[in-house]
């Protein structure tokens, strides 16, 4: 019996240590990116601003490179309150808060200027706040450029070239739908498995922005990069509502302001990274193709018709299209 009784302190300790996280003034920020990524650098910038302006009262600890989990796991941890802040692609959030689907519609933004007007204006703010029903609040958007196709053997000049090509997509309904509407066969695959999949011919191509194409070294196994810019899904910085509501008004303002400033800072970093990446892949022998975007845009018209009367994002879509 003594052996059983002696266990009680151990059990108590487990329970107590499990509960102490909430009152900690340090906010944990976990994300899935490498430390050389522009978004990571912007987060470091943000945490410095926050610490400086709150006189060290509010601190943000950053855990990069999937130390705390993949994007989806991080959102789940954030909803429970184990992680305070994380950065996710808006496609990941589609499964958590439906309004984010609107950013996954192909060619929804006319150009970069239109995109920033939407994201930084009332529509972007509304989507950020919609997450609160699902226990996370959006702080700001980070630029993730626009995504384009890259293929292994066959260059893509028109949507017809995609016919029968197996294209790796993210785990998202809208991404699968987009590729199949354009004529390709969408193949959901983990990002980490893509290099080998391209090499061995499991898929014929994939789609992503220039820095990801470059940093993942996929350019070594796919020789054609078609800049058709079909989607421009932003990255979103979100905070758990449990943590957000526990902050004082002053700290909320400091954090929100720092997030917005880091987003501005990230834009310039991103532009540099994109230009560098594109130059580097060209140097490595990748043929970069700038096709006529019109046939791609025409081919995705059914997606617009489908979402027109959607109760969740139909209105949002119209507002975005009408915005100057």
């Amino acid at each position, binding site marked *: 019996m003594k052996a059983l009784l002696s*266990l009680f302190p151990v059990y108590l300790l*487990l329970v107590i240590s499990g509960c102490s996280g909430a009152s900690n003034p340090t906010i944990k920020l976990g994300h899935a990116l490498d430390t050389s990524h522009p978004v990571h650098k912007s987060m470091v910038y943000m945490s410095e601003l926050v610490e400086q302006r709150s006189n060290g009262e509010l601190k943000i600890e950053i855990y990069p490179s999937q130390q705390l989990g993949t994007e989806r796991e991080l959102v789940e941890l954030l909803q429970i309150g184990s992680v305070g802040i994380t950065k996710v692609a808006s496609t990941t959030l*589609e*499964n*958590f808060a439906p309004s984010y689907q609107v950013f996954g519609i192909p060619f929804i933004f006319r150009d970069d200027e239109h995109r920033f007007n939407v994201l930084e204006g009332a529509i972007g703010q509304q989507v950020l706040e919609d997450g609160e029903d699902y*226990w996370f609040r959006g702080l700001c958007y980070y630029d993730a450029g626009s995504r384009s196709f890259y293929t292994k053997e066959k260059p893509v000049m028109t949507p017809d070239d995609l016919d029968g090509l197996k294209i790796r997509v993210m*785990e998202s309904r809208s991404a*699968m739908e987009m590729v199949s509407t354009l004529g390709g*066969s969408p193949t959901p695959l983990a990002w980490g498995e893509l290099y080998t999949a391209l090499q061995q011919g*499991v898929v014929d191509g994939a789609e992503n922005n220039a820095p990801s194409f470059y940093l993942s070294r996929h350019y070594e196994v796919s020789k054609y990069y078609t800049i058709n810019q079909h989607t421009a899904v932003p990255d979103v910085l979100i905070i758990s509502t449990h943590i957000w509501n526990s902050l004082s008004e002053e700290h909320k303002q400091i954090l929100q302001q720092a997030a917005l400033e880091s987003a501005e800072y990230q834009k310039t970093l991103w532009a540099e990274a994109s230009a560098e990446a594109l130059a580097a892949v060209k140097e490595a022998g990748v043929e970069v193709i700038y096709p006529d975007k019109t046939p791609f845009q025409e081919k995705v018209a059914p997606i617009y018709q489908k979402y027109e009367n959607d109760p969740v994002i139909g209105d949002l879509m119209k507002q975005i299209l009408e915005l100057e």
Partner: protein
Amino acid sequence: MGTLKTAIDAVLKQLIIVVMGVLLLDVIWQVATRFVLNNPSSFTDELARYLLVWLSLLAGAYALGQRLHLSIDLFANRFSRKTELWLDNLVQLLMFIFSFSVLIIGGSRLVWITLYLDQTSAALKVPLGYVYTVVPLSGLIMCFYCLFFMVQNVRDIRKGTSHIDKQNPGDIIT
């Protein structure tokens, strides 16, 4: 309690066989659609992942009931039979605490939160809360097995017998 264990064993075994079978068919279908039909199926990858979660948790519980989990019995074997049984009780208690607090309480909370927040999977569009129900379920079964073994150990101590086979701890003398 013994008959209840036999019943749970049997049901669990059948369930694991079915899950493993579906998993096998699912993966074959995935390969077939990718390389033969050239039109990859969008749901197989996700289904395989969730089936594997179910398989590992249920089979983990089953293995606990059969005492098939790896254990280092270097010291346990050197003790007298009675001490060995007490030691086993301690091990079972630790497993019980883990299963109860992490799998049952934590798992139920996870199920509740994901259902409440309406989280759905990307390809199949099933509420993830249903997928996660396996966590408290397997926890419940594990707790039952731990209790069962503890009761049996105490009985053995009283009677001076042992149901743990010294030479081969994986086998239970029945």
